[in-house]
C-alpha cells in the first residue's frame, strides 16, 4: 500500500514539476505547482507528519498559491517570450542541473544505513502520544521564543508587502 501510494504521488509530484517547466503561461505553471504541493502533503502523511500535511495544504496549496494565482491574474501575465538570454540559460542550465542531480543522487545512493520508511510509524515510541502532541510540546515549550519571533516576522512581512505594493511607490518613481 505504502509503495503504491508513494509511486502514485511521487509520479504526480514529478509530472507537476515537469509541467511547471513546460508550460509557457504562468497560470498553468501555478496550477501544476498546486498539484506538486498537494501531492507532497500526501507524502508527508505517508511519512507520519500529519500536522505538516495539513499545514502544507492550508499554507502552501491554499494561501501561497492563491496569492500567486491572484498576482498572475492581476498583472495579466501573458506567455513568456524566448530571447537570446533564454537560449543561453537553457544551454548552460541543462548540463548544470544534470550534474547537480547526479552528484546528489550519488551521495544518497552511497549513503549507508538509510533504512526503510514504515507506514504509521510515529515520532515517538511512547504509547498513546500522537505526532501532533509531541510536535506541539516541543514547539510551545522549548521553541516558544522562535515561534513568537515568527509571528513578528509575518507581521513585518504584511506591513512590508502593503508598503511595497501601495501606490505611493509609483508616485515617487514618477517624479
Amino acid at each position, binding site marked *: *500500500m505504502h*509503495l*503504491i501510494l508513494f509511486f502514485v504521488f*511521487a509520479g504526480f509530484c*514529478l509530472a507537476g*514539476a515537469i509541467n*511547471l*517547466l513546460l508550460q509557457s503561461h*504562468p497560470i498553468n*505553471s501555478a496550477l501544476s*505547482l498546486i498539484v506538486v*504541493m498537494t501531492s507532497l502533503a500526501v507524502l508527508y502523511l*505517508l*511519512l507520519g*507528519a500529519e*500536522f*505538516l500535511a495539513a*499545514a*502544507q495544504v492550508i*499554507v*502552501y496549496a491554499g*494561501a*501561497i498559491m492563491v*496569492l500567486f494565482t491572484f*498576482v*498572475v491574474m492581476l*498583472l495579466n501575465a501573458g506567455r*513568456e517570450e524566448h*530571447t537570446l*538570454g533564454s537560449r543561453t*540559460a*537553457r544551454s*548552460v*542550465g*541543462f548540463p548544470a*542541473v544534470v550534474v*547537480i*542531480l547526479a552528484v*546528489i543522487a550519488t551521495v*544518497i545512493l552511497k549513503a549507508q544505513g*538509510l*533504512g*526503510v*520508511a514504515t507506514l504509521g*510509524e510515529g*515520532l*515517538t*515510541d511512547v504509547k498513546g502520544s500522537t*505526532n501532533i502532541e509531541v*510536535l506541539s510540546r*516541543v514547539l510551545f515549550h522549548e*521553541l516558544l521564543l522562535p515561534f513568537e519571533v*515568527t509571528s513578528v*516576522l*509575518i507581521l513585518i512581512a504584511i506591513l*512590508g*508587502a502593503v508598503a*511595497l*505594493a501601495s501606490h505611493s511607490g509609483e508616485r515617487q*518613481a514618477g517624479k
Partner: protein
Amino acid sequence: MSSLLTQEVPIAWYLLLSAALFSLGVLGFLIKRNLITVFMSIELMLNAVNLSFVTFAHQWHAVKGQIFVFFVMMVAAAEAAVGLAIIIAVFRVRATLAVDRIDLMKL
C-alpha cells in the same frame, strides 16, 4: 501483488524524489523567463528541501526536523507576500514581467 501491498519504501527513494524536485526547481529558475514563474521555481525548491527534512525526521524519529519544516513554511509565506509585492511594484514601473527586460536594480 500481495508483496506490492506490504512492501515498504526505502528512505533513499524519498530523498531521490526530493533531489529530483530540487533539480527541476533549479532548472526552472534558470530557464524560465517570467518573473512569477521564476518565483514559483524557488517555492518548488523550498518544498523539495522540506520533503528531505520530513524524511529524515521520520528516519531518526526526531521531532526537530518537522519543527524546522514548520518554520520554513512560515518564512516561505512571508517571503511570498513580500516577493509578490515587489513583483507588483516592478510591474507598475516597467510594465513587463520578462526577466531579460528587468536588468537594472534602479526602478
